[in-house]
């Protein structure tokens, strides 16, 4: 059995940066990622795109990932692409399935760098073909370079929605309209939160403002203050009805709607290991409880990048390095790069995170998405509407009993799309805070695994 010093789950900015520091210092490192190439969500496909017109349109921050990917490829870490981690035992026995079949490895330490997923924000009709997330559309932009065939409608709130619109327009696509679901925030309050960061990050702020301005200018229509959406159609999306905070109802015709309401840390992996989580009101999301190194309540697990709390790519790089430095310390090694010190990483991390409170405040999700109406599907897999959960909710049961009684969270996505909404519904039904409610317990496997892949381990057991 392979026994590396360090297993890193995820080859995004955090995972790669940690791998580079750890491997260069002489640790045996294995990096596993479901994607076929390194880069994570943000730098997806950067090796193929950098230097092409597509790369240029995706922007300089995107292309800057190439350096990290190259360094990662050369750092000496063992890299298994197209490979899923589907179980990590508390003793760190780790089960992976990839092109090489299914195997079990036994690392000394694990770094979870699994990134984020988009916040599921249920509304009526959100399961119709033709409703997709902005993140999904951006993935298509990076590989294979697809754009919506018609000018597209985007609804949402968050930097990613703006960035995508900006990239799409630069690549020759068109935005038919933007339904801005961002609650209006007094500018002064937001700026106060940003504090001195505004000055230091004025470049980025200006960039964001210019996206906004560009969008208002280039999108066919721009509708601020949207509070409610409904996707219309039977077999596929035919239109969208929306309501604004001012109470105006309107309808548009479209066969594609891209939605986005921010992102959430990937918590399944950490929670399957019993790592403690807490509610982060600023980000309206659960996040793992971590110390300044990314160490969690499990002694041999560290968490870095967006999986540790949403911070963006640059913060992920520095968090990955910090976790790697801690790992080196624990295993009695030192970083090979002279400049790679705790102080420099912390300073860089602080700079990368400076604007975060401002962004969190400006793009705080509207309350409506935590309180979908009775007709809205909560659990996409089991097709359960809020209405179907009402009786059980009234009995003030916890999330796990609710799951047992209704099957919410029992489908293939294993609660990734309904977990947060169910927690919010429970909190609302019982008049409790999100922090007092826990999401569903995570049952293994982390991702579905084929029967034959599990059965294969039995044969292996016989031969060893």
């Amino acid at each position, binding site marked *: 059995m392979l026994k590396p010093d360090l297993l890193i789950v995820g080859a995004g900015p955090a995972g790669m940066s940690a791998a580079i520091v750890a491997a260069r210092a002489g640790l045996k490192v294995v990096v596993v990622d*479901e994607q*076929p190439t390194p880069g994570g*969500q943000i730098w997806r*496909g950067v090796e*193929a795109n950098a230097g*092409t*017109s*597509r790369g240029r349109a995706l922007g300089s921050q995107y292309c800057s990932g190439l350096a990290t990917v190259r360094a990662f490829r050369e750092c000496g870490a063992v890299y298994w692409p*197209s490979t899923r981690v589907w179980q990590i035992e508390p003793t760190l026995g780790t089960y992976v399935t990839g092109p090489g079949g299914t195997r079990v490895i036994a690392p000394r330490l694990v770094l979870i760098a699994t990134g984020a*997923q*988009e916040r599921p924000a249920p509304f009526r009709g959100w*399961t*119709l*073909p*033709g*409703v*997709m*997330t902005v*993140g*999904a*559309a951006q*993935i*298509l932009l990076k*590989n*294979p*370079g*697809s*754009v*919506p*065939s018609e000018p597209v409608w985007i609804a949402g709130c968050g930097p990613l929605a703006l960035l995508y619109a900006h990239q799409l327009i630069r*690549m*020759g*696509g068109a935005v038919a309209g933007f339904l801005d679901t961002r609650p209006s925030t007094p500018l002064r309050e937001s700026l106060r939160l940003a504090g001195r960061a505004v000055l230091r990050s004025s470049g980025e702020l200006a960039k964001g403002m210019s996206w906004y301005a560009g969008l208002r200018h280039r999108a066919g229509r721009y509708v601020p203050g949207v509070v409610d959406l409904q996707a219309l159609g039977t*077999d*596929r999306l035919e239109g969208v009805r929306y309501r604004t905070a001012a109470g105006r109802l309107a309808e548009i015709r479209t*066969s*594609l709607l891209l939605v986005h309401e921010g992102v959430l840390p990937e918590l399944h992996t950490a929670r399957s290991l019993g790592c403690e989580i807490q509610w982060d009101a600023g980000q309206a999301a659960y996040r793992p409880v971590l110390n300044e190194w990314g160490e969690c309540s499990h002694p041999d697990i560290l968490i870095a990048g967006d999986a540790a709390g949403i911070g963006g790519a640059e913060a992920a790089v520095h968090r990955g390095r910090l976790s790697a430095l801690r790992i080196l310390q624990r295993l009695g090694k030192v970083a090979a790069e002279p400049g790679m010190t705790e102080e420099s990483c912390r300073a860089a991390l602080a700079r990368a995170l400076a604007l975060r409170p401002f962004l969190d405040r400006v793009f705080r999700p509207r309350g409506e998405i935590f309180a979908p109406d009775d007709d809205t599907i909560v659990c*996409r*897999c*089991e*097709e359960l509407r809020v209405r179907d959960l009402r009786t059980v909710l009234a009995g003030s049961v916890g999330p796990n009993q609710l799951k047992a009684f209704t099957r919410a969270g029992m*489908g*293939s*996505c294993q609660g*990734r*799309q309904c977990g947060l909404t169910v927690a919010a519904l429970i909190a609302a039904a019982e008049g409790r805070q999100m922090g007092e409610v826990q999401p569903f317990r995570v049952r293994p496997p982390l*991702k579905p695994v*084929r029967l034959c892949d599990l059965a294969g381990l039995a044969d292996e057991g016989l031969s060893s």
Partner: protein
Amino acid sequence: MFRLLEDDRGRMESTVTIEIDGYPVIARIGETVASALLREGASWSRTTPVSGARRAPYCMMGVCFDCLMLVEGEGLVRACQTLVRAGLKVQRQTGPRKVGPSC
């Protein structure tokens, strides 16, 4: 729902043909079955086992499982995590999948 950009890498030699429900679909090497599907007129991937409703790829990053399709030799898998390869046979999944000697 989607179309390919005409950029500097749209040359024909970088494509393969896969089959979706028996029809040939041209795909780019390195893309996923889901991204090829989304350029088709009917871009739905499956109907649900519960109510028979149509679904299409939603997240493209492997967390929603709405892109489940029957891939020859592999079973019902996420099309957004499955790379195309020449001759790959894919079927839209209607309702719960069948199990049988050929699956």
